[in-house]
């Protein structure tokens, strides 16, 4: 497969997952601010913005504008609409590589969300976009799994999706566990529903909401699709499959990095990490970043010298 094509598929998938993540978080946050609680509206929006738009100077975010900023801001690079455009733009470059069902669905979704032309104070409109993306995302994932050959293209799509998911989960957990004030139950419900995890958590751990258990569930649970552990496992599988197909002999670095990442979540217990949780999460994000550039160097933008060893 052409490197450019692999790169486009990877980014299509990342952008899409980013939009999906933002829509989950926004739905949960919007639900939260309707309830009066210990945390003020500002603090909650601050948390949402800092987990969705890193580096967007959240301290100066006006809570009234936050929803618009995260959903439809044409300037901001983190808004849902921007992410969907990014995914579509990447898909457009490789239209002949993805199935036409995938393209049609993504294209329709793009036209639906950009067609709204939201005004900054239109909360209801913004939430409609959010639910469009929620629905669209489930369908897109289903269509992709059901219509695309599970070959190299599929593995790059999987890699992008779970790379994005792992990083987003870490950032989100970081934002919720950062505050030293103890969050109340409502906030924990907010965190869990941000990860589509409330029902899953209740089934596994009952509705008793304890920070350690929640951290354990979202970080280390190998069976739950929106956990860091699950995401890293899928990345590991995708990378293995790609290196098997590509017959490349230069995969040691990538293998070492993914192996180390997995061991960080596979061989720890939650009480070992809960004290230094923020540091631990930062380390995972950092290593994901390193892995991303290693993959990019190995498959996408390798120097010509590497390809001609002599």
């Amino acid at each position, binding site marked *: *497969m*052409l*490197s*450019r094509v*692999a790169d486009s598929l990877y980014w299509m998938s990342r952008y899409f997952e980013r939009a999906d993540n933002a829509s989950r978080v926004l739905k949960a946050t919007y639900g939260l601010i309707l309830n009066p609680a210990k945390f003020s509206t500002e603090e909650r929006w601050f948390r949402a913005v800092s987990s969705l738009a890193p580096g967007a100077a959240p301290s100066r975010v006006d809570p009234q504008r936050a929803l618009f900023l995260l959903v439809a801001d044409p300037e901001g690079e983190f808004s849902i609409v921007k992410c969907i455009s990014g995914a579509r733009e990447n898909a*457009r*470059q490789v*239209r*002949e590589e993805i199935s*036409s069902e995938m*393209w049609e669905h993504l294209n329709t979704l793009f*036209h639906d969300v*950009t067609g709204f032309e939201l005004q900054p104070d239109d909360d209801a409109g913004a939430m409609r976009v959010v639910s469009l993306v929620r629905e669209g995302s489930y369908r897109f994932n289903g269509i992709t799994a059901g219509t695309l050959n599970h070959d*190299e293209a599929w593995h790059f799509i999987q890699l992008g999706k779970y790379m994005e998911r792992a990083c987003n989960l870490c950032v989100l957990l970081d934002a919720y566990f950062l505050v030293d004030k103890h969050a109340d139950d409502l906030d924990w419900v907010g965190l869990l529903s941000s990860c589509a995890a409330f029902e899953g958590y209740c089934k596994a751990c009952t509705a008793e909401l304890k920070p350690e258990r929640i951290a354990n569930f979202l970080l280390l649970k190998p069976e739950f699709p929106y956990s860091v552990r699950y995401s890293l496992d899928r990345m590991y599988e995708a990378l293995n499959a*790609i290196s098997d197909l*590509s*017959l*490349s002999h230069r995969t040691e670095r990538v293998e070492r990095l993914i192996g180390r990442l997995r061991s960080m979540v596979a061989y720890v217990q939650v009480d070992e990490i809960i004290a230094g949780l923020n540091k631990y999460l930062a380390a995972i994000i950092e290593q994901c970043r390193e892995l991303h550039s290693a993959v990019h160097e190995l*498959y*996408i933008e*390798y120097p*010509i010298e590497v*390809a*001609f060893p002599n």
Partner: protein
Amino acid sequence: MSQCDDAICQYAVPASDVVLPTATERPLRRSWFPRPFHVFVTGVWVGRLSVASSVMWSIRTSKPETERGRIALKGSANDEGATDRARVSTLAQTNGAATANLDAEHKEGHNEQHNSCVNSRLRLAIALRTASPMMRIAFPEHPFAVRETSAAIMIIDTDVSDRSGAETLRQYELNGAYDEMFRAADHPRKQYRQLYNLLLSLGPGELRRSKHEADQSFFNQGITFTVYGHDKGTERIFPHDLLPRIITAAEWERIERGLTQRITALNLFLKDIYHEGKIIEDGVVPGKIVYTCKHYRREMRDIKVPHDVYITVVGTDLIRNPEGNFVVLEDNLRVPSGVSYMLTSRGVMKQIFPGLFQKCRVRPIEQYSQALLSTLRFLAPEGRSDPTVVLLTPGAYNSAYFEHAYLARQMGIELVEGRDLVVHDNVVYMRTTFGLRRVDVIYRRIDDDYLDPLVFESGSVLGAVGLFNAYRAGNIAFANALGTGVADDKAIYAYVPKIIRYYLDQDPILESVETLLMSDRAQRDHVCQRLAEYVVKAVGESGGYGMLIGPHSTEQERSEFREKINAQPRNYIAQPAINLSTAPCFVDGAIEPRHVDLRPYLLYGEKITITPGGLTRVALRKGSLVVNSSQGGGSKDTWVLQN
């Protein structure tokens, strides 16, 4: 017209005369409304709506003879929205019963008074209600949102939609040009007899339904081209006409022989001028003309191209003159396009006219992709037993990107962009996730100028650095070779009959159009005095740009061209205006003659093969002679019959 804005034209209508529908709601159908059309109220015909001018509408009921029995709607376009979205809000009242609302959305960019009616997409929502003495519908922001719930909605059908096949043919008028289908009125040529009988047997509305089905099929398959200058990347379907153009086996045989002869000679010509230049030495073609061609590539001198094949893929434009003979209009020897429309429209036509295909015995064209692939593989450098062929595209923003992706998928080869290619030691590679993979043949859909920034246009990012050196070293083959544009220069075109005689010692089988060179003093003076009789073309242009069509031009356009010609005589040629042949087209619900040309696709590999068929391009505007898609042209499927 401003007094017509929101004008209310009142006519008293006795309640008993208004055809009152049952209060059912039906959604409005969104479709084309050519003029004039009939108005139905839930299935009952109430009147005929005609477009009186680009901005006036009126409705007459079934009783036009009495003033009292008339419902009239009049409206005018708002001035501000007149260019692209003219909303006509019209209100009409009858005796306390009806109110109507018209909303017209014009297609973008139309200007002409005459065509704006045909091109405007009318959405008509007329509501009638019996309950209240006078009903007023708020002008809906959304044309489909009629706010009054208990109102019944008039369904508007076009006048012509429900005509039977025989009726659609009634208006067909022969206009002196050679007609592809009819020898004389109601006398179809032999090859068209099956189609003619089929048309006669069609029931009301069947053609329109087939047309809709075909358009839908094109749209769903994504057979579109990109319209530039639109931020959302608008994609439109290529206008397509439903009725096939049919060519007999004998006619085709002549085309085949003629094109083979012509392309063989032009290929020899290219080899000659980039090597010894014998034809120039012998004074057959003046060197001055060859070396001043816009597409002459000095860099190609003495480069050996694989198997001496310069022009691998050709799409020559033929027209049929009033005597019925095919004549070459233009040779496209650089990067001819449109073949994907030929292939996909055949697929769609098979769905729509399956029976007709069997009866007519149409020769297949589906083998084109395989033939193209083996032709390209034939070009591979020696010693490369299993060559890698790629298609080089300018990228997803190119208007022909659909074709590039389609051909790459059909041939099972990689679709690459310039940034995927790397040249190392004069060998071309593409970057894959497996590492670098050697490339042997490039089917390039990029002009010469953009292929290699080291040699040609230095700012180009579409090609790759070093491609030309790899070519010079013989490590890569291009299809087509570089510099082939010399041979389709319109000034060289005038010499093609001589070129054929010089290399092949044969008389040309296909005629050329008489061509006058403006660089020749006597010919220039002759043409400048009679510009209204000639078509003037810029020599290096294509796509119907830079042309003056004398008979359809204004005095001002002619004087502008006169100046241009005198400023740069080498840049122009003139040809007598030829009346292209016409073929029946299904336009605005009727079958009418439109001018057509023919572009067959030829492949030059081990031998020359011509796909039996091609792209018939149609000038969809009435009377127009310009068939290019950039100038409002469409296409037709082309059937070549077996013996």
